[in-house]
């Protein structure tokens, strides 16, 4: 994507492409970003003074309604599965890009984006539903930490979709020959990272009660 010919054509000390090294470096830095958000979530787990709670039920004092544990685990398990499959799809798309198999590249890259979009759609639905049930950013600590952590993850997915979408457009316009497959590979590395982070978030928020 970034046609940094300067970085691309210069022989490097290690022989590795500088852009690939840069994305790995950036991912290393992002680990600390998510580690801080996740730690905050864990430190504040179970410290909410009022509901709705993630797993326990709560009676809303305003209208007497009982809100059961607010997390919809089957739905999120499904969108998690879809997101993981999109990581698989982007690997196949990269395979296509590296070997000049245009149909494979465009098909699997489209599939990757559909997977990402379904995940994001699930998150939009979930956020809407939660707000409807009375969980907002400022309702309790769970709301503050949950929306901030998963929201920033969703933001990363959105950036990934825009990035992959841009690569898809260049592929459709026939401007992603095998020698430029690295443009996809870098985006794919970022995409995998976003998926891996989600596995951690999903486990800690949804699976561990």
């Amino acid at each position, binding site marked *: 994507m970034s046609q940094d010919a*300067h970085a691309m054509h210069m022989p490097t000390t290690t022989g590795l492409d500088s852009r690939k090294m840069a994305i790995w*470096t950036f991912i290393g830095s992002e680990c600390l970003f998510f580690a801080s958000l996740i730690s905050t979530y864990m430190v504040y787990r179970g410290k909410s003074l009022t509901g709705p709670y993630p797993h326990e039920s709560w009676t809303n004092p305003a209208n007497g309604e009982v809100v059961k544990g607010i997390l919809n685990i089957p739905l999120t398990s499904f969108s998690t599965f879809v997101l993981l499959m999109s990581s698989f799809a982007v690997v196949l798309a990269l395979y296509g890009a590296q070997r000049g198999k245009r149909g494979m590249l465009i098909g699997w890259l489209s599939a990757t984006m559909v997977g990402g979009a379904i995940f994001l759609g699930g998150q939009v639905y979930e956020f809407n539903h939660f707000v409807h049930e009375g969980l907002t950013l*400022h309702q309790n600590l769970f709301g503050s930490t949950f929306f901030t952590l998963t929201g920033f993850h969703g933001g990363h997915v959105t950036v990934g979709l825009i990035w992959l979408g841009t690569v898809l457009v260049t592929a459709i316009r026939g401007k992603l020959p095998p020698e430029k497959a690295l443009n996809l590979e870098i985006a794919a590395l970022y995409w995998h990272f976003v998926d891996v982070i989600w596995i951690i978030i999903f486990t800690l928020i949804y699976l561990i009660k």
Partner: protein
Amino acid sequence: MATTVLDHAETHAHAKTGLWSWITTVDHKRIGILYGATAFLFFLIGGLEALLLRIQLGSPNNTFLSPETYNQLFTMHGTTMIFLAVMPISAMYFNFMIPLQIGARDVAFPRLNAFSYWVFLAGGLFINISFLFHAAPNAGWFGYANLTTKPYSPGPNVDFWVIGLQTLGIASLAAAVNFFVTIINLRGPGMKLMRMPMFVWMSFITQILLLLAFPVITVALIMLMFDRVFHTMFFTVAGGGDPQLWQHLFWVFGHPEVYILILPAFGIVSEILPVFSRKPLFGYAAMVFSGAFIAFLGFGVWAHHMFATGMGPIADSFFAISTMLIAVPTGVKIFNWIGTIWGGSIQLKTPMYFALAFIAMFIMGGLSGVMHASPPADLQQTDTYFVVAHFHYVLFGGSIFALTAGAYYWFPKMFGKMLSEKLGKVHFWLMLIGFNLTFMPMHFVGLNGMPRRVYTYPAGLGFELLNRLETIGAFILAISMLVFVYNLWRSLRNPVPAPADPWNGATLEWSIPSPPQEFNFAEIPTVHSRDPLWETKRARGGPLPEPALASGKDIHMPNPSFWPLVTAIGVITTLTGFLVGFPYVNLVGAAILLTGIFSWAFEPAG
């Protein structure tokens, strides 16, 4: 000689000048100069703030500054000196010197480099614009929650601080990725890791610290901003939030930040001492590993800033021990510096003066640092002027002395002119005397109980004389800076060009003309040892001839671009939206940001 004149004319035929060439530049040397000039201006502003503080404290019960103005000035002094002066002055040296010292033509991502500078400039201006509204940040450079949450800081002051710092963090992270990759991947032939100049090594470790520490403050600032704008409860006690979380996150960033400020200084001094002692650096490998060890330990000591919060004996003991442990690799460095000058043929030039003073001043700062590694001692010293004395001895006596040493050392390379030795020594003595007169008495008033961050003190507590001396010292420091500015101005107007290698240097930057040509090296040099230029001179049996200017016709350099600037404007506009006009300003900013990124991605880089 004839060829030199010819080449000279040819090179200047397509030399790029004018404002637009600076706005669109992607040349690491120009970006370095931009960093340096901007940071030096901020440094003078931060110094002016300190002078005002010292005038206020020069006599008891003074009314020169109101308490509110005092709060704004000490907050801005700290914030400015750390984020807008010392860090970007280090960034000037990273930019200018890393590619030259490793034998590269530029950094790995020249446009990203320009982006870093523009974002830094935007963040610096953003924080300082708050003065126009008399709403400068006023809660300390550490921004402790819940003092900084909305109920206790209702004005826009803290928003300026949060958004400004967030912006500066983006600049630092982008630059850190860039230099990290540059040092790993753009080293010339033969420049193995263990042959890199010590400045490159210490810069490399600094980039790792930046990459791992800044995301933490990014998250802390996001949470504080959310508390202020969206009423989240991260630091709201009424909602179950814990203000101490801020302190933990801030210092997990804040302590590595201390090493981000000092490691480049270590690197600079490790370049200067060997050259002016005519001896290779003593204990090269020990220097590398002690630097790495300091950085590693730096992530395990953050809570020594929090002994007064009552963390309990186990946490206190752990952090006390890990903090004291840092004295070991730091001591290794000091002994190696002394080992370097020991028995050397010492040339007492201005850079050497500052480098030697750095060692002495830094040892004093280090010793007082070890003193408050002990929790019981720290409980007496915390929030007093003793701490102020300590961190000025490491940050001013350490970082600023070393950065100034670097200025005298590398100015000829950067601008092609020599700084006056005579003025340099006047600068040195005034700075050394002014510095010690300002900060030495702070140890004593601090131990006698004078609290920091308080706008005045009553008469009769025994603080008057020492505070008056400190204020006089601050003015001597200010005069030393005027001498430095005059020296800079005089040298830049001086028509006599500096030679390529005025100090008999050991590293690659001295093998090329002063100032270097756009492409740095007409031919990328091959390196066979740690002191490549000394080796070449030894083989030749004497000094090298002045290098000829090359035409550089066949050398391919990246194109200029203004998209980094547009992208930086997008960043600051997006973030400004959290202060005014949420969410419309944010959306406009995001649109500019996307335009910048896409135009950047699809323009030919050259």
